[in-house]
């Protein structure tokens, strides 16, 4: 299951990418899908299993996430509130 994380600014995205890659988490920078409304043009894609670890790491880094979206293989998606 694909998970897409959005941020309020490209600077958060870039910082998150750096930090998460350093931690060895499998992530990908992607243009924010059209369907998701976000102020920021890029987002981070990862697997469902990584989400909790990402939340912890980014929380420690004060790199605040804007939204977390779950995409199924068929292209459907839902926002994950926490």
């Amino acid at each position, binding site marked *: 299951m694909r998970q897409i994380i959005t941020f309020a600014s490209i600077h958060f995205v870039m910082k998150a990418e750096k930090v998460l890659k350093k931690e060895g988490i499998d992530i990908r920078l992607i*243009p924010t899908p*059209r369907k998701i409304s976000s102020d*920021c*043009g*890029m987002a981070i894609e990862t697997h469902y299993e990584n989400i909790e670890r990402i939340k912890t790491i980014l929380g420690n880094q004060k790199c605040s996430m804007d939204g977390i979206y779950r995409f199924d293989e068929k292209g459907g998606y839902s926002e994950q509130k926490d």
Partner: protein
Amino acid sequence: MVSIDLMRREVIVNKRIDGRGLSCPKPVVMTKNTLEEMEAGTIEVIVDNKPAVENVSRFARNSGCEVKVREEGKNFIVEVTKRETSEVSKEEIVCQVEPQKTGKGITVLIESDTIGEGSDELGAILMRALFPTLLEASPRPQRLIFMNNGAKLAVEGSIYLDDISKLEKEGIEIFVCGTCLDFFNLKDKVKVGKISNFFEITQILVEADKVITI
């Protein structure tokens, strides 16, 4: 502005040319002959289609004349003013055919705040020449995209703001890369154009009839 408009109407028209129903190059040839016969002054060329407007206007501009166009019912009136200094063009008359494509015209992609490599000082001068000349070019581009350092041209304090706003007022669509503004922390400083995302920018590039990358 009103007073300028009034002044325009007081122009003395020395001759009217009826180019309705005629196909290129005829209206252009008639314009050329009339311009060659007269010393200085203003003529009006009436035509009934847009390509004819373009063809006559282009020829007149190349001849150093001033050109103004207005619509009158189904027709267009091209007002051509010859000055003492105008030189009637000797070049071959160009007939631009009816635009073949229903497409999205010319898109200019501006990826920097200077033009070209070598000297940035010169590159900045070239950029300052770009916008006023685009305004006079024919056909005019329909869309401008500003990316990377180019996005800085559209924000508060930019010396290009007036020129870019003028293009926008003339109906040219201006798109500024939102992520670029975000990156430079300039998102709330943008003064002209629409903030655009990657999907929109790529779509504009592929659907243009032609992309000019600066």
